[in-house]
């Protein structure tokens, strides 16, 4: 029987040759990810259900990456870090990345890749909806709640309904003014915020395979914004090179069968697409930047698991080099490694850090920061009636802090171009 890549990976995890869509199957989990917001309640449930002295099913497979509320004076947030630290110590978890030490990494989805936990063919669950980001590595990654995570902690297993797949094919050579963010916002505008609920979103086509790993992660990251269970891109030579550079673990590459069944297939020619934004207050509220040209903004924000990777900053630097921003602009590297790379990676002979500083941007410490608002003292948090152009993933009411603020989701090119003019601006004006 023909299967999609997602079915094949779930078959492997269920010790089966074939799993059918719609079937509920028990999966053996390769990695469980958690962080400072959902880790403490997950550990509570684990102790309550399995006993105060219970041990997790496999300490090597539990990855704890605090990243949400890190650089804040909020006492409750500090307590959550203490609870992670305590559990990691009790359970002797080797993959705990403590805040305030040189082990601290930053935003979990990007750090997972950097630390070599993204392995093609494997199954990852995480207590964060953007766990789907890891699908960029030809693996299954999906978000779950605390109770499901506690169940995995004790058993190493979880039930899941095998999803139908939707295929999104991007043909043509990627133009320099388009980013992965434009592609995923294009899809969201077409299918809506529930267009892929309970389904896999598989990305394919020469334009997708021309993208670096960072950009593939952006595509898969926002699968959840369409309600998708997972986003996935089959591994190729680019993926293999990345995985080999970050891990020595064995991996298995799966491909969809040519005759596999799909719920639906969407085809795009990237040469016909243009830079887009998602207008307030929903990621599917798409408009071309051209049609919104001139909309005044009060802030530009370049950061998060979606838009705070090295490639995002390389793209922003292309536009910001030798220019001045006219609105407050936050540069928030996703991880410590990305932050370090800003100091050594260059564009036209100048480091990205210097380009951003000379342009008048403020560079923050790596964490989730204002992507989800956070405590009142969070860097870049929206206030009052801010109008923000942001490379993040959600623009729900109040998402970045203020309920009265408006957030336009955009690519790093568009966010940088708009920072320079103080208005929504098509990046083609600067390229």
């Amino acid at each position: 029987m023909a299967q999609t890549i997602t079915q094949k990976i779930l078959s492997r995890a269920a010790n089966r040759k074939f799993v059918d869509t719609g079937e509920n199957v028990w999966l053996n989990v390769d990695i469980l990810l958690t962080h400072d917001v959902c880790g403490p309640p997950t550990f509570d449930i684990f102790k309550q259900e399995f006993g105060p002295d219970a041990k997790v099913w496999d300490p090597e497979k539990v990855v704890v990456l605090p990243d949400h509320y890190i650089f804040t004076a909020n006492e409750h947030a500090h307590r959550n870090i203490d609870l992670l630290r305590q559990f990691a110590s009790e359970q002797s978890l080797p993959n705990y990345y403590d805040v305030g030490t040189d082990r601290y990494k930053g935003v979990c989805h990007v750090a997972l890749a950097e630390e070599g936990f993204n392995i093609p063919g494997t199954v990852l669950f995480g207590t964060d909806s953007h766990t789907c980001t890891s699908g960029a590595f030809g693996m299954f990654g999906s978000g779950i709640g605390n109770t499901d995570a506690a169940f995995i902690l004790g058993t190493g297993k979880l039930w899941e309904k095998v999803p139908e797949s939707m295929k999104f094919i991007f043909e043509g050579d990627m133009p320099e003014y388009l980013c992965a963010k434009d592609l995923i916002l294009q899809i969201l505008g077409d299918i809506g915020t529930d267009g892929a609920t309970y389904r896999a979103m598989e990305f394919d086509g020469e334009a997708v395979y021309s993208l670096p790993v960072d950009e593939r992660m952006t595509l898969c990251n926002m699968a959840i914004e369409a309600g998708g269970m997972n986003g996935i891109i089959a591994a190729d030579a680019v993926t293999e090179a990345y995985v080999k550079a970050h891990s020595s673990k064995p991996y298995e590459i799966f491909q969809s069968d040519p005759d596999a069944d799909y719920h639906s297939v969407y085809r795009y020619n990237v040469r016909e697409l243009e830079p887009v934004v998602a207008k307030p207050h929903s990621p599917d509220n798409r408009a071309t930047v051209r049609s919104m040209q001139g909309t005044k903004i009060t802030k530009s924000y370049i950061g998060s698991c979606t838009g705070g990777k090295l490639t995002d900053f390389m793209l922003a630097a292309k536009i910001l080099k030798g220019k001045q921003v006219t609105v407050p602009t936050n540069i928030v590297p996703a991880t410590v490694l990305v932050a370090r790379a800003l100091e050594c990676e260059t564009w036209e002979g100048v480091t990205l850090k210097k380009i951003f500083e000379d342009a008048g941007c403020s560079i923050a410490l790596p964490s989730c920061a204002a992507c989800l608002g956070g405590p009142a003292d969070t860097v870049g948090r929206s206030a009052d009636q801010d109008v923000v152009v942001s490379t993040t993933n959600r623009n729900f009411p109040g998402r970045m802090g203020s309920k009265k603020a408006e957030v336009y989701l955009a690519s790093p090119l568009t966010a940088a171009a708009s920072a320079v003019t103080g208005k929504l601006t098509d990046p083609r004006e600067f390229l």
Partner: protein
Amino acid sequence: MDTIIQGKAYVLGKNIDTDQIIPAEHLVYSLSDPEEVKLYGKYALSGVPPEQGGLPQGNIPFVTEGTFHSDYTIIVAGPNFGCGSSREHAPFALQVAGAKAIVAESYARIFYRNCVDGGFVIPYETSVPLTGVIKTGDELKIDIEANTVTNLETNITFTLNPLGDVFSIVRAGGIFAYARQENLMAQS
């Protein structure tokens, strides 16, 4: 488990995301300390823009300011309820505030799983939009065995979609209770 859920309706629109259900700044409170848990009740649905809360009239808060408990037991909403983040704090906050069931046109996957596996509130689906025929404050009665919801103000009964496979987890009270009952945890 009770077979009847009766109480007042609180009506919302579509795409009620988890930031509206419990804004991210409140995710820092303990989910086990009884005093802090109350705060989840206090802030349940506090991220909903005021004019969109308590439809059709709007500007009706789910939880009266200064209190920790809602007067409303059943939430009625449009499609894609619970979209957004994986925070289990969302269905938990609704439960703490006193909600027992949601009747929506559809749900986001993680929120739905969290409701069921955590045993917080029962997520019923309706194929017929009910947000136009039920008003905030209407007294509703859900019959769990019959899979129906009745608006006691008008005496009109609507059929809900069957919970299917998930009903046994709902009846057990969550995934742990279900797994013990079915000996699934012993196998692992």
